[in-house]
């Protein structure tokens, strides 16, 4: 086996030095009836070229040439080449959680830079070293608000990503944490402020909204914050499309921000690994979940970085920890750090503006078709919008398939009240030509047979 650095003779010599006769002696503590005496029934050992062929075959079942208008919490943006050049350096790839600060300053400084960039973008004071993803991050952010306020109820907007809400439900079910849901305004697609005002009480720990929300619409954060804060509740803002922060005002009125940072240079990879992050006002720091890197000095006065405030964490606090999280998404956070360094202060804005332009164009040409209209068109939005068609989405999606285009995602699976409504996302990588084709296909009502 090519990964194993020992010859058969070395193995025998080592057994002798240990003082046993055979390798089975070292496994004799496992009762005989539980020792496996056959080969595992798994595929045989493959050569490297065979492994690559196997995965190429699997990959070829999907032709890359498809153009997709899918978004909904996972976004395809261009990934600059040097991200993969750098994260594949063995010193980053094959290191672990930087427990030994003297020999992991590279990872530690990079995380410190990540924390800074996230704080700058979100308008929060501090950010952690990462969470698993946006969905678990949102759930952890709500539980953080519960700890901060000592209250045990939460109000959740129905325009938060449906799968995030499902994860939240799983997390809160056994925490004695009832949640209530607030719907959206049928005209604007934003959270229904009157309903929110009615839902928030003196027992509410936090209000969780997403912005841009699941329909791509930017919520009125100052108004929502005022309602939450009036009752002493915190405002938690979930951000599923991090690129939006290049052009959208950050939710500075929020107390906690939970963000999915996949858009910052992370491949779609069928849903993961992505990278969540929690950012917050400094006064809530001690209730934050996850790892934090802090700046300090060494015995000679040099600047250095360490994992810090670990008394919040499971390896110290055990059942009283703020979270059970241990391994996070450090390498993916590094991708995001490199991505943000590449685009920088100006580039992230330009990139966001291109997304805005592409989406505006898509809306314009799709809605030029008399059988289609954009819902919630009055409210500001980023690069996603809801399209309602006379024709059922399954029908036109079938036609788009012939052109190797995947259209917007059908919203009825999550919002049964929305008939023939689909969510369209256009990022900077979708060429105009494909947008025009999609518009033409949508308009082409098939001839009845």
């Amino acid at each position, binding site marked *: 086996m090519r990964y194993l650095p020992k010859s058969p003779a070395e193995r025998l010599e080592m057994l002798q030095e240990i003082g046993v006769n055979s390798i089975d002696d*070292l496994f004799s503590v496992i009762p005989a009836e539980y020792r496996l005496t056959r080969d595992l029934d798994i595929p045989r050992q493959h050569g490297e070229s065979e492994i690559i062929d196997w995965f190429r075959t699997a990959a070829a*079942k999907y032709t890359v040439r498809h153009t997709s208008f899918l978004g909904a919490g996972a976004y395809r943006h261009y990934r600059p080449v040097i991200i993969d050049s750098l994260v*594949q350096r063995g010193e980053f790839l094959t290191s672990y959680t930087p427990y030994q600060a003297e*020999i992991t300053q590279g990872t530690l400084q990079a*995380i410190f830079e990540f924390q800074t960039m996230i704080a700058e973008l979100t308008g929060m004071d501090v950010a952690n070293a990462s969470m698993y993803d946006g969905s678990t991050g949102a759930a952890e952010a709500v539980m953080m608000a519960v700890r901060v306020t000592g209250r045990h109820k939460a109000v959740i907007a129905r325009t938060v990503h449906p799968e995030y809400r*499902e994860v939240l439900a799983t997390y809160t079910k056994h925490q004695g944490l009832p949640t209530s849901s607030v719907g959206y305004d049928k005209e604007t697609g934003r959270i229904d402020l009157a309903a929110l005002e009615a839902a928030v009480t003196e027992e509410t720990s936090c209000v969780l909204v997403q912005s841009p929300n699941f329909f791509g619409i930017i919520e009125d954060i100052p108004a929502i914050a005022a309602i939450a804060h009036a009752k002493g509740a915190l405002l938690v803002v979930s951000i599923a499309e991090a690129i939006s922060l290049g052009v959208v005002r950050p939710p500075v009125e929020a107390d906690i921000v939970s963000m999915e940072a996949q858009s910052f240079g992370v491949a779609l990879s069928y849903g993961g690994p992505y990278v969540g992050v929690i950012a917050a006002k400094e006064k809530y720091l001690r209730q934050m979940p996850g790892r934090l890197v802090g700046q300090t000095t060494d015995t000679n006065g040099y600047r250095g970085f360490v994992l810090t405030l670990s008394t919040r964490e499971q390896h110290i606090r055990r059942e009283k920890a703020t979270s059970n*999280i241990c391994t996070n998404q450090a390498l993916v956070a590094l991708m995001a750090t490199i991505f943000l360094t590449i685009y920088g*202060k100006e580039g992230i804005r330009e990139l966001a503006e291109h997304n805005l332009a592409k989406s505006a164009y898509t809306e314009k040409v799709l809605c030029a078709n008399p059988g289609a209209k954009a819902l919630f068109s009055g409210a500001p939005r980023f690069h996603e919008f809801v399209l309602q068609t006379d024709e059922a989405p399954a029908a036109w999606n079938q036609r788009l398939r012939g052109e190797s285009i995947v259209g917007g995602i059908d919203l009825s699976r999550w919002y049964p009240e929305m008939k023939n409504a689909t969510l369209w996302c256009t990022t900077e990588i979708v060429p105009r030509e494909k947008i025009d084709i999609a518009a033409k296909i949508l308009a082409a009502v098939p001839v009845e047979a």
Partner: protein
Amino acid sequence: MTTTAAIPQTPAGIRTLGKVRPHQTQNEALVFEKSSPGKKAYRLAQLDVPEVDPAALLGDAHRKVSGELPELSEIEIIRHFTRLSTWNYAIDLGMYPLGSCTMKYNPRVNELVARIEGLAEAHPYRPDYLSQGQLDVIDLLQQCLIEITGMDAITLQPAAGAHGEFTGILLVRAWHESQGNPRRKILIPDSAHGTNPATAAHCGYEVQNLKSNALGMVDLEELERVVDEDTAALMLTNPSTIGVFESDIAKIAAILHAKGALLYMDGANMNALVGKARPGDFGVDVMHLNLHKTFSTPHGGGGPGSGPVACKAFLEPFLPIPVLYTNKDGQKGWNYDRPQSVGRVRAFFGNTGMFIRALAYILANGPDGLRQTTEDAVLNANYIRAKLEDVYELPYKTASMHEVVFSDKRQAAKGVRTGDIAKRLIDYGFHPYTVSFPMIVSGALMIEPTESESREELDLFIDAMRAIAQEVEDDPELVKTAPHSTRVSRLDEVTAARKPILRWRPEPK
């Protein structure tokens, strides 16, 4: 050193330059300190649609002040992160015997196949007809892991080990609820990882600690005494955190099952068992795996991980949604209609990119390779034990599996603790072992070499450990002030926690 003269001092007066370091790569500033306005490392594709006016489109929601992100050119970015990388220790540089973390070789073909465009660019919501290749990967990995663990069903959704624990205990809870009573408490041995009690608490359970016996194993009498109709499960790491196989595992399972309680196995140490024994055969009801430990996906400086949960058939109805299915004509898809499911634990389907890597590792090994891997991991740990047990105290003489845990008892008599020995090991070119864990061992040195170490590397490590033991006798100060060879010396963790500086801030203008 003109290049470094421009680097500002931090407001706190911390020496970023102080003494001139031996090489400029050792002076790399924060990326923000290297920024100057107008530099660029990007060029967007030409916009092929009409420009828009963001302020007009967004109104009050328009961002007027940009975040202070750095502005650098591409070569500077390459150098910045490459220089930072050289400050890291890594498996690729040498032995990384961090006990319980299984720091094995991360094969590069795994990285290549995970980046094949049709897999890496797959949107999670693309229709099933376009996802068959990705679903083939998931299906085959599921089958392999079910066979390796001897369980009946699996979910790959959890994002890491602790997330897997959470999912597994939710299955336990859901099953008990279906029997009419969720029960109240989870038993956890005093040798367990901190994630276990944290998980139990987050699933709404009380944690009851279980004292280990003199061999560091589960005390059967104690177990019998504490298990009752209120016990939901025992969370057991097997082999345990001292690297010992619970040889009474079947009796442990029987005691639990007799009272209707379940046996959860923390699979952190599965690298000791793959191809040699299967938890499903010895009474485990539900367990998690760590693909980043046992199945070679990279640790990446602290993730991403992946924590699949395997279970027996009676727990299958409770698995998180969605669950993969294959219909009669071989087409695969996701089933969301699972009324007894515990719900979702993560958006989409899990850390899919890690599934690709883990499957590539399994294919590279086959059944014979996986068995040899396990044997070599156990061989290496026992070799280290045999070569060091005369100089370091071995608190539990029970046979070791894939890791060996010593105590600093002898060195502590000279005022040198496990943390000091660990720091001195850095000077010898190794990453330290896991320090002061498990807590049942006073001053623990938890050493897990994995199968990836050659005999030569093991001998160098053993020489280093023996040399340090001698230094403790001759010159304990040398060890207590280590490391002496690193870019930074011991860092002030107390001040870091008392006055947290968690981000860089721009100079006030």
